[in-house]
């Protein structure tokens, strides 16, 4: 039985209470803090006990009764601060909560803690948090990935069975792969963005982590569906899950050649080779395919996302949110500049500058418009493969296992290229899931399934079948 089903069944049938669940989470959060994981930002035993009482006193417990969820700190919650791991929002408590949080709480779940992240979700290592870097749960010298590294680390460390992160360019799948947990990015428009603090509005997706595929599937089923508060959510009902499947007969799995380059890390290649063998044994037809514009995904992303970030982050000016910078006699413009100059960290400032540059007079056509056209070509690549009879794509999630802290922090381009296999489906809006498929020298390796839009149910059923036959904790190069 998977963690989410186990907890909610136990609470619904009276075998345990939310209060006991909250006490256990409290102990685990204290232990994680003592170990220096630095994955949880805001939480308190009193708040956990209060949330547990709310659930225990309900007559109708709900589908996620008593399930503790760590929530990335760029998703608005009512009772805990929402800082985006940034000094510019230090102490900010939202006056409203995100639609996903409201839906999860209505289903009986509770917010266990706010999770650390790269400031404003900009990063691939969770080293860019204003509140310190997150440690990898299996090797403190390494990064947990990012930007949702705190959420991934909390699930991998067993503190919470599920967590929420956000994806803009792979920020859930990449840390899921690094930490050895499941990370699911839904189709753009499947889940409301209301209350997710905007980074790249045409890319952002609230996305769950879990110990198992079944855990993220149950969370997605609750939080998905049209939201009148977000006009980019599709007019569709919440996701209905498929029956679990024991095999992959009748499915065609595509292997995009561009995701298996000659210089792919040997451990990643070995893990994927083993996974592909299992997929064949499960009865799927496997064929090689091509997504020729893959190589342009990272450059495209680093035009589109910073351009949208520069616009979205203009609202943080010291007037309406957080601390205000500048001398007492500063004029308005100087106050804006001082507040933003001091409030934003290095990576956020860099991306705002890149975004402002590519949108500035004379460059908009050269960079932004062209990037949006290339984005269309990347989406066409996926459409062509899926319309030619491929049901799902199978790829490595990341080119390497988790890297050492500090290895890429001085080289933004090297850091950006860590997302090369997760960026394309973020740009095109396709759903994708990363599952752990092995370890190399103790470090987890993830495989990614990508599906046509709105086919999460098929993708999750296939991912669960693969999960059932791959030993994710086994070394791939003994």
């Amino acid at each position, binding site marked *: 039985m998977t963690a989410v089903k186990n907890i909610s069944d136990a609470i619904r049938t009276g075998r345990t209470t939310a209060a006991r669940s909250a006490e256990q989470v409290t102990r685990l959060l204290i232990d994680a803090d003592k170990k220096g994981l630095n994955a949880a930002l805001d939480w308190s035993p009193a708040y956990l006990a209060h949330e547990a009482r709310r659930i225990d006193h309900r007559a109708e417990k709900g589908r996620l009764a008593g399930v503790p969820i760590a929530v990335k700190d760029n998703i608005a919650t009512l009772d805990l601060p929402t800082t985006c791991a940034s000094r510019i929002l230090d102490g900010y408590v939202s006056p409203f909560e995100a639609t996903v949080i409201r839906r999860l709480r209505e289903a009986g779940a509770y917010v266990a803690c706010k999770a650390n992240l790269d400031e404003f979700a900009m990063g691939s290592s969770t080293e860019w948090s204003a509140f310190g870097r997150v440690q990898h749960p299996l090797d403190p010298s390494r990064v947990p990935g990012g930007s949702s590294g705190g959420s991934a680390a909390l699930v991998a460390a067993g503190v919470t069975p599920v967590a929420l992160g956000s994806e803009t360019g792979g920020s859930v799948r990449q840390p899921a792969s690094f930490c050895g947990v499941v990370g699911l990015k839904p189709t753009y428009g499947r889940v409301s963005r209301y209350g997710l603090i905007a980074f790249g509005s045409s890319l952002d997706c609230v996305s769950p982590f879990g110990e198992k595929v079944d855990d993220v599937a149950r969370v997605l089923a609750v939080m998905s569906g*049209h939201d009148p508060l977000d006009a980019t959510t599709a007019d569709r009902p919440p996701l209905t899950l498929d029956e679990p499947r024991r095999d992959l007969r009748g499915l065609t799995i595509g292997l995009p050649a561009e995701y298996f380059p000659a210089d792919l890390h040997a451990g990643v290649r070995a893990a994927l080779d083993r996974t592909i063998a299992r997929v064949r044994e499960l009865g799927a037809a496997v064929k090689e395919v091509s997504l020729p514009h893959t190589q342009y995904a990272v*450059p495209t992303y680093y035009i589109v996302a910073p351009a949208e970030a520069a616009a979205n982050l203009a609202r943080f000016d010291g007037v*309406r949110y957080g601390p*205000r910078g500048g001398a007492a006699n500063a004029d308005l413009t100087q106050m804006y500049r001082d507040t933003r100059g001091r409030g934003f960290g290095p990576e956020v400032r860099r991306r705002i*500058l*890149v975004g*402002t540059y590519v949108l500035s007079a004379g460059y908009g056509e050269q960079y932004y418009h062209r990037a949006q056209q290339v984005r269309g070509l990347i989406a066409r690549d996926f459409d062509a493969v899926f319309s030619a009879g491929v049901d799902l794509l199978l790829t490595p999630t990341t080119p390497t296992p988790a890297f050492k802290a500090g290895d890429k922090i001085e080289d933004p381009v090297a850091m950006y290229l860590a997302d090369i296999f997760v960026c394309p489906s973020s740009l095109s809006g396709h759903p994708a899931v990363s599952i752990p498929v092995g370890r190399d020298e103790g470090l987890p390796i993830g495989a990614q399934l990508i599906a046509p839009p709105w086919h999460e149910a098929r993708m999750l059923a296939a991912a669960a079948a693969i999960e059932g036959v791959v030993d994710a904790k086994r070394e791939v190069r003994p």
Partner: protein
Amino acid sequence: MTIDSRTIHHIAGLAELAVTDAEAKALAGQLERIVGLVAQLERVEIPSGVGAFVAGPAAATLRDDVVAPVPLNRTPEMLTTGFQRGFYLVPKLGSQEPAE
């Protein structure tokens, strides 16, 4: 494409970001590398008729045109540094009037 400190100060001004001279020097090198990365897109052959990508549903589902603000748990004055009689308080624009 060469990006120098002067360009950084110009962009930082547009973005309302305070940047010191030392920071501008470091940022110039970093932005030059990033712009070098994204400049790869100039090599991509764009077939005719390819427009800008649009994310999400083809047609957004609009809400009824009814003014119904989301009820807030906290009032605006609890979020900001300066608030008086329904207005956010900000310094004056130096270019128009002297600051008090």
